[in-house]
């Protein structure tokens, strides 16, 4: 059964993550540090004419969540390579589990750890007095969009890992992708302030749609139409990324 097999493997990964408290601690601290540093660094940008929010931190919160997703999921493939080398993957593949659950449980786990970070971010944002939407449905919807993006990126990282087969180039590709994707989105500033060519880049960047969808839910006017469009694009990206990764994985098995 796909669902139960995925669940058992997912539980295993969560358990392992839980056993590395140092990782969890750093993992939680990092986005908070980003939020604090960037909010302070760019605080004067909020004074630009037509800036959508009263302060930069409020604007940046969805951005830092997506950033967490990007940086957190980009390395998801590293542990897949390790599991392949250790024989852990072979051990799973000789059991009669659903073939798709091997990758899907990994991707779910990556997205879940990122989600925990995002929840902490949200809690800190509240305590910092950021002007968030206080609508539970809107907050949930925003998190779902971020989570879907996490699935997509973790799948992409796993797929690239299988293609590259080695950790070092995977790290290079990860570095190569994350920063441009980050800056070619409205994570740090609204698209309208960007040079035209970057605006064009943002148009085809799934990150941008995830940020837009999350922002309208967390700090904006909760525009469900805007959210729906953004979420559909992110969902499409995630489905395509996972389908590609799983295809690559199965093909690599011979």
């Amino acid at each position, binding site marked *: 059964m796909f669902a139960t097999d995925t669940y*058992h*493997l997912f539980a295993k990964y969560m358990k*392992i993550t839980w056993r590395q408290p140092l990782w969890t601690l750093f993992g939680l601290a990092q986005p908070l540090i980003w939020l604090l540093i960037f909010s302070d660094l760019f605080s004067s940008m909020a004074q630009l004419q037509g800036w959508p929010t009263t302060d930069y931190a409020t604007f940046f919160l969805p951005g830092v969540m997506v950033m967490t997703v990007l940086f957190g999921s980009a390395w998801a493939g590293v542990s897949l390579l390790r599991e392949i080398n*250790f024989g*852990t993957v*072979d051990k799973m*593949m*000789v059991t009669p589990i659903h073939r798709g659950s091997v990758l899907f449980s990994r991707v779910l786990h990556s997205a879940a750890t990122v989600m925990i970070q995002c929840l902490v971010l949200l809690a800190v944002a509240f305590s910092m007095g950021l002007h968030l939407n206080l609508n539970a449905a809107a907050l949930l919807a925003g998190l779902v969009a971020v989570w879907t993006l996490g699935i997509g990126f973790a799948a992409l990282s796993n797929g690239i890992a299988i293609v590259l087969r080695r950790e070092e180039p995977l790290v290079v590709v990860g570095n190569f992708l994350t920063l441009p994707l980050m800056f070619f989105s409205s994570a740090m500033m609204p698209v309208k302030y960007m040079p035209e060519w970057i605006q064009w880049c943002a148009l085809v960047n799934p990150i941008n749609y995830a940020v837009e969808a999350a922002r309208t839910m967390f700090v904006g006017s909760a525009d469900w139409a805007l959210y729906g469009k953004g979420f559909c694009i992110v969902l499409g990206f995630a489905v395509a990324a996972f389908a590609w990764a799983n295809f690559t994985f199965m093909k690599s098995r*011979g």
Partner: protein
Amino acid sequence: MIRVQELVKAYRGKRSPSVDNVSFEVGEGEIFAFLGPNGAGKSTTAKILTTLLPPTAGLAEVAGFDVVRQSRKVRENIGYVAQSTGIDYFMTGRENLMLIGRLYHLSGATLTGRVEEMLRYFNLTEVADDVCAGYSGGMQRKLDIATALLHRPKVLFLDEPTLGLDAQSRIDLWQFVKRMNTDFGVTVFLTTHYLDEADRLAHRVGIIDRARLQVVGTPSELKDLLKGDSIALNFDADGAERALPLLRSATFAKEVLEEEEGLRVYVDNGGETISDLIQLLSAKAIKIKAVTLARPTLDDVFIKFTGRSMDKVEEKVKPWWAQWAGDNWEQMEAQGDWQGNQWMNADGSPKDENSFKDWQQTQQISPEAVTDPQVTAAEPGTENEAPVSENQDSKPATPTDGAAAPAPSTGWAGNEWVNADGTPKDPAAMAKWAKEMGAGKGSK
């Protein structure tokens, strides 16, 4: 329980198949060992039978199911223990067992019951709640086997089960495999490159070499094929050549094989024959350097069928350029694809002209002129493996003419022990070197 017919596995980009037309059968309750050197195709066969790899051609059935068309049914009926343990180091022994049990779709009381049973069976109860990272190699292997038995498989595949284990753990593990075989009635297919492992553990052995199954039989059947003991002889100089016709025509010799370091004679009764043999040879003034009498072992069987000894088959050495070629080196080696990089040609020679001349010189050293053991790396046959380091190693050696050649003009002025022409700096050693060089010349 296992039926394999004309099985072929060819990887893309490799010239010769990894498994070539292999056919055999394993009966229910048998312990069957695939014996062969590294890279012979043992693990590939095991991976095909455990559905981890699809075969290129041929038929493979395990527990009555086809490994390609009914792979899921096969998986439900087999356990597999790979060379790399595959257990999760961050989890405890019990957690590993519970997880794998769940992946085999066991649950509730059945699952916990089986887990406890396995922990008891493999004496792991005490460490069951310790994280596996702290387990010894033997314990990890036992836990690995335990996870593969949880669902009561009909066939258990063990890929090099005792690789890397110490002597005591190996014997311990052999006993477990034998006990499992009787206690659970599980058919065991194991691969190994340890002769004693196949000999002591397996009911039947298949010898595989260079992707082909050479022979199958019980260990004693295989040894009987040799009909007797073997006497290995080492000679000085041309002794082997002169002894060969004599021994071939001798009545006591059933078979004489030429080996790298001498001859191997198969006889009925080694103890009695050995004196006749020595008499025969000393009558013709052939000096024997060493004689070894051996009861037949599986290695002798291996030699008979493959023409070489298991111990002599070395692991596939990575070509020296593999680190620059990445993971595709095997493929590139097969295709002869590696074209060198910006500094080196594909044969390891430098691209820089000056260095190339220097390199050429080092390549021309004849083995006879080599006196320094360090320089033996310059022998043909090894030159593809490490010419880069060899470049430095062999520089102090002298060129073929044996005379003190002028130092290469590239500016290597020797190091603290050796001059640029390879002569030692120490005066005493210099005298000895000169003498040896003279002797080397004389013997040619």
